[in-house]
C-alpha cells in the first residue's frame, strides 16, 4: 500500500467532519480524507472518484446511511463501506452488515479501533482485489491450457489418420 489512500467520510454533523478527518490524518500518514454532509453529496463524489473506503453515519436526514450503503453496493460494489452507529443500535448494525457493510464503528468513536477497522477493511479490499486478479490470471492460464490440450488432441488424430492410409 505505497500509493496514497483516499477515504470519504459522510456525516451530517459538521463538528464530526472536522474532528474525524484530522484524527485519520494524524493516525494514518498520507491518507487523503474527503467529507460529505449528506448521502446525496456523497453519491456525487462517488460518481467521480473511486475511494479506497467510505465511512458513513447511519442516522442522517434525507437518505440515511443504510440507503446510501445500498446505493454504494450497486455503483461501487468493491468499495468497502464502514458504518458509524450510535451506542446500542444493534438492530441497525445487523441491518447494515446484512446490507453489505464490511464493519461498524460505534459512537463515541475509539480512534484506535476506528483506524484499525479502516485499515482492516482497506487491506481486505486490497487482498480481495489481489485474489480477484490472481483468479483472473489463473482463469486465463486455465483457458490457455485448455487450448493447448485441444490442439494436442487434434494433432495425434491427424497423425494416426496418416498412418492408417
Amino acid at each position, binding site marked *: 500500500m505505497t500509493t496514497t489512500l483516499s477515504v470519504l467520510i459522510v456525516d451530517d*454533523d459538521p*463538528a464530526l467532519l472536522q*474532528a474525524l478527518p484530522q484524527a485519520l490524518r494524524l493516525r494514518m500518514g498520507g491518507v487523503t480524507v474527503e467529507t460529505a454532509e449528506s448521502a446525496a453529496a456523497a453519491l456525487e463524489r462517488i460518481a467521480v472518484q473511486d475511494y479506497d473506503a467510505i465511512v458513513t453515519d447511519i442516522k442522517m436526514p434525507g437518505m440515511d446511511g443504510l440507503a446510501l450503503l445500498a446505493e454504494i453496493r450497486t455503483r461501487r460494489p468493491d468499495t468497502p463501506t464502514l458504518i458509524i452507529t*450510535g451506542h446500542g443500535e444493534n438492530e441497525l448494525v445487523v441491518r447494515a452488515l446484512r446490507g453489505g457493510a464490511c464493519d461498524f464503528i460505534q459512537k*463515541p*468513536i475509539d480512534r484506535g479501533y476506528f483506524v484499525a477497522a479502516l485499515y482492516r477493511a482497506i487491506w481486505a479490499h486490497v487482498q480481495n482485489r489481489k485474489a480477484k486478479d490472481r483468479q483472473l490470471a489463473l482463469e486465463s492460464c486455465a483457458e490457455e491450457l485448455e487450448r493447448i490440450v485441444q490442439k494436442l488432441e487434434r494433432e495425434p488424430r491427424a497423425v494416426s489418420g496418416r498412418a492408417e492410409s
Partner: protein
Amino acid sequence: MPETATQERQAAVADPGAAVTAEQRLRAHVETLERRLRKRDDQRRAMLHIMGDLSEFNKRLANQRKAMLHVLADYEQDRRRLARQTERLDSSRRALLHILQDSHQDKLRLEASRKAMIHIMGDLRETTAEMQRREQELRDKQEQLVQAGKLATLGELTTGVAHELNNPLNNIGLFVGNAVDLIELAVTEKGQIVRELGHAMQQVSKATEIISHLRTFGRAAPVSREPISLRQVIERALSLMREQLRLREIEVTVDLGLEEPVVLGNAIQLEQVFINLLTNARDAVAEAPRKAIRIACSTGSGAVDVSLADSGHGIPPGLERRIFDPFFTTKEVGKGTGLGLSITYGIINEHGGTISVVSPPGEGATFLIHLPLAPAETEETSR
C-alpha cells in the same frame, strides 16, 4: 095508608055519625100528610143542596186527588233523587275514608321520609367532608400525574436526546484525542492543538446546554406562577425536539409574530404542553407524504392564541372530544401513555386558558391554545 083510608071510607058509609068524625080525622090526617109533604119537600131541597155541595166537594176532592197524585209523583222523583244522592254521598264517604286512610299512610310515609332525610342530611355532611378530602387528594394526584407525565415525556425524549448527547461527546473524544496525538507527535505549533481543544470546548458547552435543560424540565419544582415569555417557552420546547424532528425530515415553520406575549404561569409546565403537542404532531406526520408542522402565534388584547398544525391524517371524526381524556390513545400498545393530551389539557386549564382541536376531513389536525396575557404591571419583571 090507602088501606086505612079505604077502611075509613067503608066505616063512614056504614056509620054516618061516625062519618063526620072520620071526616075530621081524615082531614087532620090530610093536614098531617100535607105538613109532612111540605117537610119532606124542604128536606128534599136541602138534600138537593147537600147533593150539589157534595158533588162540588167531590169535584174538589178529585182535583185534590189529581194534585195529590202529582205531588206523589214529585215526591217519588224526589225520593229517587234522594236515594241516588244518598248513594253518591255514600260512595263519596267511602272515597273520603280511603283518602283519609291514604293521607294517614302518606303522613306516615312523610314522617319516614323526614327521618330518612335527616339521615341523608347527616350522610351528606359526611359526604361533603369526604368529597373535600377526595378533591384535595385529586389535586395532589393531578400534580403527581403532571410530574409522571413529565417523566414519561422525558423518557420519550431520552432516545432523541441520547443521540443528541452522543454526538458532542463523540466529537469531544475525537478533538481531545487529536490534541493528545499532536502533543505526542511533538508538534511544536501550539495553534493547532489549541484549535482542537477549542473545538472540544464548544462541544462541551453544547452537551452542557442539553443536560441542564433536561434537568430543569425533569425537576419536580413547586408549581409557581410568574410572568414568562411564551416565545421563549416555545423555542425551548423546540430546542428539545429539534433533533428528532430533523432526523424525521419534518419541516417546522414557526411564526410567532412581532409581539412578545407574556403570560402568568409556569414555564416548565407550558414547555411540557408544547413538547407534548410537538410529540403528537411528530407521530401524526410519520406516515404522511408531506411532513410539516406549523406553529403560529397571534396576540390580541388580553389574550394570546397559539395554533399548532400538522400535515398528518387528522383525527377521525368523533374522537375530537375524547383525545383529551386520560389514558385515551390511538397509538399502538406501548407507544403512547394516553396521558400527554390530558395533562396538556389540565395545564392549560390551570393557566386559565382553553385548548381545542379542529381536524377538517382530509387535512391534518390543528390544536388551538388560548391563554390570558399577564396583567400589564407584572410584565416588567418578565424573564
